């Protein structure tokens, strides 16, 4: 791994350099949240871009770039092909890159078949992860196998030094993108790295303060044995069934296939699906094993904290806190896990 230096004032120019690799998305502040925006080489103050990079995970989960919420996957009798062009995504956090590597890749790249569209996007898209110097109260990556900074998994990582940004080159794709920039990035000074390390320890300390307790190590068994529907109904008491928590989750991976007639043919469409949908488990003739919402709630926890760790040795939750921040009913997943 090699580290390079980006002066703060050069952030806009850096995005323009990245755009040589592909369409570039970067975080932008909107109503005190970060959201992804396409880099259009407009005049945006470097300081504003810097602030956006420092924020916690963007509102949109990283999977949105890789698993479209609705996409055509087959057609008959006329066939189709997809032209997937390279993209650059700047601003993914550790909790996001892990959602790809540890969760979505396990589902979509392994097993009986791989998803060819997902695979191609994974190959072509360049992910630039960014440290989190200022974790939010909803963040709990530290308690679920992550860190408020990413040293692996992305192609490049941006971290915050004394006077500028440190660019770590983490993959061959990252190297390729940096090479396209010529000598745009400079040598990095030791004192920058020292400052970066301090930011990292401070962030970890802050996260530990917000989340003082570890989760029980036997969560899978606790979920398996928590069969009391009143427990789940209570956990859900304030839920208004808006399904925001699942839609916004970077690790939820379910989908549904359906067909639509187009002209004389048919197209098969894949849409992301959510197990909170009342019809999620419905089988032929209307029988529904997940008819009651408390069963569907339990199903979500079973999926993330029992089945996934048993199958892949990792929870299908990266602690990004989006479901907490986005919940209409102010339900905190950490409290449900602690109550188990």
């Amino acid at each position: 791994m090699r580290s390079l230096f980006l002066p703060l004032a050069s952030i806009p120019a850096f995005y323009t350099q990245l755009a040589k690799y592909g369409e570039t998305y970067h975080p932008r502040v909107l109503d005190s949240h970060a959201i992804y925006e396409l880099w259009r080489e407009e005049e945006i103050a470097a300081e504003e871009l810097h602030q956006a990079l420092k924020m916690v995970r963007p509102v949109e989960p990283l999977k949105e770039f890789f698993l479209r919420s609705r996409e055509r996957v087959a057609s008959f009798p006329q066939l189709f092909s997809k032209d997937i062009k390279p993209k650059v995504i700047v601003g993914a956090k550790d909790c996001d890159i892990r959602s790809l590597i540890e969760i979505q890749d396990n589902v979509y790249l392994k097993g009986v078949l791989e998803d060819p569209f997902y695979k191609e996007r994974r190959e072509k898209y360049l992910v630039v992860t960014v440290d989190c110097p200022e974790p939010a109260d909803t963040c709990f990556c530290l308690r679920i196998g992550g860190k408020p900074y990413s040293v692996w998994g992305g192609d490049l990582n941006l971290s915050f030094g004394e006077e500028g940004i440190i660019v770590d080159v983490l993959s061959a794709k990252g190297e390729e993108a940096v090479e396209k920039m010529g000598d745009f990035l400079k040598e990095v000074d030791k004192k920058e790295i020292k400052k970066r390390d301090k930011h990292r320890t401070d962030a970890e300390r802050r996260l530990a303060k917000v989340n003082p307790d570890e989760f029980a190590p036997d969560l899978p068994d606790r979920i398996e044995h928590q069969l009391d529907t009143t427990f789940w109904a209570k956990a859900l008491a304030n839920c208004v069934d808006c399904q925001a928590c699942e839609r916004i989750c970077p690790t939820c991976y379910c989908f549904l296939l359906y067909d639509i007639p187009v002209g004389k043919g048919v197209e098969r469409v894949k849409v992301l699906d959510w197990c909170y949908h009342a019809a999620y488990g419905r089988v032929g003739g209307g029988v529904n094993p997940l008819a009651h919402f408390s069963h569907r709630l339990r199903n979500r926890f079973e999926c993330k904290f029992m089945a996934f760790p048993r199958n892949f040795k990792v929870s299908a939750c990266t602690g990004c806190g989006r479901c907490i921040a986005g919940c209409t009913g102010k339900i905190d997943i950490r409290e449900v896990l602690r109550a188990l």
Partner: protein
Amino acid sequence: MLEPKPALSFHAGQFIELTAPGVGEAPFTPSSSPYVEESMEVTIMKVGRVTSKLFDVRPGDTLAVRGPYGVPYETDRYEGRHVLIVGGGVGLAPLRSLFLALLHNVSAYKKIHLYYGARTPKDIVYDRLFKEWGKIKNVEIRRSVDVGDKNWKEKVGVVTVLLDNLPFKPKDGLAVACGPPVMMKFVTKRLLELGFADEDIYLSMEKNMSCGFGKCGHCRLGELFCCKDGPVITWDRIKHLEDPFV
């Protein structure tokens, strides 16, 4: 009867995804013998959108099929043992391909016991085939209906009544069951009481399925996925779950 082009071979226990044009697809288990490669039979009960559309299909129409998916029955584990097949209602359809596959090599098993329960004599599937099957050496057939009629001479009662007085010792055999969830639940309970080992009870677990190959999440049952770890799953792998049959 489907004639997949190119021919699509499968093993008993596997399923296919069959498309009703313009409506969508649904999982079905072939009910014909896996040894017949040029065509495939599927027995379908009309319950909803896809299955209703499939009832409108005429001979010669083109359908789309993908698969086969899922894990086959481990028939080599059955050799030299008694094989008890318990079917309820249309649950016999998928068991038929297993039964036909076993018949192909009938002397390899101590005996094949085909036990079948339906609601009324009119609901019996493959009624006329039972007569032929009954004549085969090494095959024992028992049938029951919940409610009989004046011509019904066989057992009356839910399918578990057929499990009384088994003609073999459970530890010399294994059981395979398919049917509606309540039937599966009570059959499993009875088989356990009789002394069948957990890993010798093979259950067809039919959950909602979309993809058929372990990605879409819909068919998850505990830590297993019915489509890729099943649909036939032995009791030892799911007995820790609250109620796998809901």
